[in-house]
């Protein structure tokens, strides 16, 4: 009983820290996005609230909190409230299986716990995929329940887009699973120790041998992840020039904030997955680039730092792509997903399987 109590207490602490960090990152991601895109377009971005506009997200949050919450007449009230909650929950719970730092055990009152992952379940990546699928329900339900044509069209588009690109995400991951032989993100990350070429994007086996690079799967994953999170150039579900705001046209106040939070939390989540699967997670690019020798006991700190560097690189990539590329047309989007990405992902699985059979790791 005591053991379970300690574990629950540790879990609660981890959950609060992870939720706190994620929500804080989301807040400042909104500012970072406006700033980065502003600079890329030779503007300053938000400058009014606080020095250099750094308090802008707090002002935005307060505004959304105190804004009138409108439920349009004819909307299905329960689904209309449920949809943003589903989207938010699905986006946040995925963080439960992400390893943020080295897989080590710490003794808390005689109970062994893993400090840098909330729960090391052996089906980690499957669990995340399952919950991202549920997130699609939030969007579709929100679009349908609003009783507005723009919302309905946005919801339908989102549904078709999400399921199309979810396939590519799933198929791109299979290549990594073939190499790692596990669904647990902790184990997949540990397999990618120690040098930058041991990470699964190049996948040179640790003891030397034939590399089976997953760089194609990596590219497919990143592109599909951009589409999965409804980001430009794939933001057709909320294309403002055609659909006003897509599935959340009728949403205001806190419910709108939930959809917004969910979108940004999803961005962070897919960045974490991409970092953990293809770029070695918390592994440093080279053994001498982490704390070692007399600072060995601080190695976990450099692990967390490397993980953060990779995740923020992907987040920056999201903004960079948004500032660079124009939006696709819907037929282009579907054709690209089904006729370009899917064959590449399938081909990668076949090639990886054959290579992994003849050159076992």
């Amino acid at each position, binding site marked *: 009983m005591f053991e379970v109590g300690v574990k629950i207490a540790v879990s609660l602490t981890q*959950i609060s820290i992870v939720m706190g960090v994620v929500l804080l990152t989301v807040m400042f991601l909104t500012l970072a996005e406006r700033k980065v895109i502003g600079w890329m377009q030779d503007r300053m971005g938000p400058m009014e609230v606080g020095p250099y506009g750094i308090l802008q997200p707090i002002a935005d949050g307060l505004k959304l909190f105190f804004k009138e919450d409108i439920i349009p007449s004819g909307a299905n009230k329960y689904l209309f409230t449920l949809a943003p909650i589903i989207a938010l929950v699905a986006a946040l719970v995925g963080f439960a299986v992400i390893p943020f730092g080295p897989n080590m055990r710490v003794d808390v009152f005689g109970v062994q716990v893993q400090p840098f992952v909330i729960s090391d379940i052996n089906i980690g990546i499957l669990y995340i995929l399952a919950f991202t699928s549920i997130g699609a329900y939030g969007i579709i339900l929100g679009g349908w329940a609003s009783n507005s044509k723009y919302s309905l069209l946005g919801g339908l588009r989102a549904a078709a887009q999400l399921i199309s690109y979810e396939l590519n995400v799933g198929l791109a991951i299979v290549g990594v699973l073939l190499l790692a032989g596990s669904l647990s993100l902790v184990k997949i990350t540990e397999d990618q120790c120690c040098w930058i070429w041991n990470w699964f994007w190049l996948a040179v086996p640790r003891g030397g041998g034939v590399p089976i690079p997953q760089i194609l799967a990596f590219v497919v994953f990143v592109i599909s992840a951009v589409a999965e999170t409804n980001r430009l150039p794939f933001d057709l579900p909320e294309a403002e020039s055609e659909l006003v705001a897509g599935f959340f046209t009728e949403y205001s106040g806190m419910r709108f904030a939930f959809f917004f939070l969910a979108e940004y939390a999803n961005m962070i989540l897919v960045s974490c997955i991409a970092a953990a699967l293809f770029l070695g997670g918390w592994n440093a690019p080279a053994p001498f680039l982490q704390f070692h020798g007399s600072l060995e006991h601080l190695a976990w700190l450099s692990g967390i730092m490397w993980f953060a560097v990779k995740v923020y690189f992907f987040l920056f990539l999201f903004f960079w792509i948004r500032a660079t590329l124009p939006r696709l047309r819907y037929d282009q989007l579907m054709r690209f997903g089904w006729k370009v990405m899917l064959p590449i992902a399938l081909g990668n*699985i076949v090639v990886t399987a054959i290579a992994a059979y003849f050159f076992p790791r």
Partner: protein
Amino acid sequence: MANEAVPLNYIPILLFMAIVVAFAVISLLIGSIARPSHPYPAKLTPYESGSPLFSDARVPFPMRYYIIAMLFVIFDIEFVFLFPWAVGFKQLGLLGLLEMGLFIGILLVGYWYAWKKGALEWE
């Protein structure tokens, strides 16, 4: 953990879900006390670029979405099968490789058929 299959590992996940749901519900409830509420009919009409509503929003939508959904189900089941196969690949040996080759081959025939039929086109 000594035994990875222990359901104990799922307790933190349930806790996490409970906390996120509680966070969402509580912030909605607190918000409902703090924010103003002055509804009137014109404010509550669905947005339609300023023009008065002329039909219900529950409009019929193209069959295309349905076809895409069916294709999705097929390929989704494919990768549900691929996941355990990929994890157990080393133990399955040559038989596993050949069987999955056959499985993907059959799917590719269906994929090729859908492509030729124009199910992947979007006009």
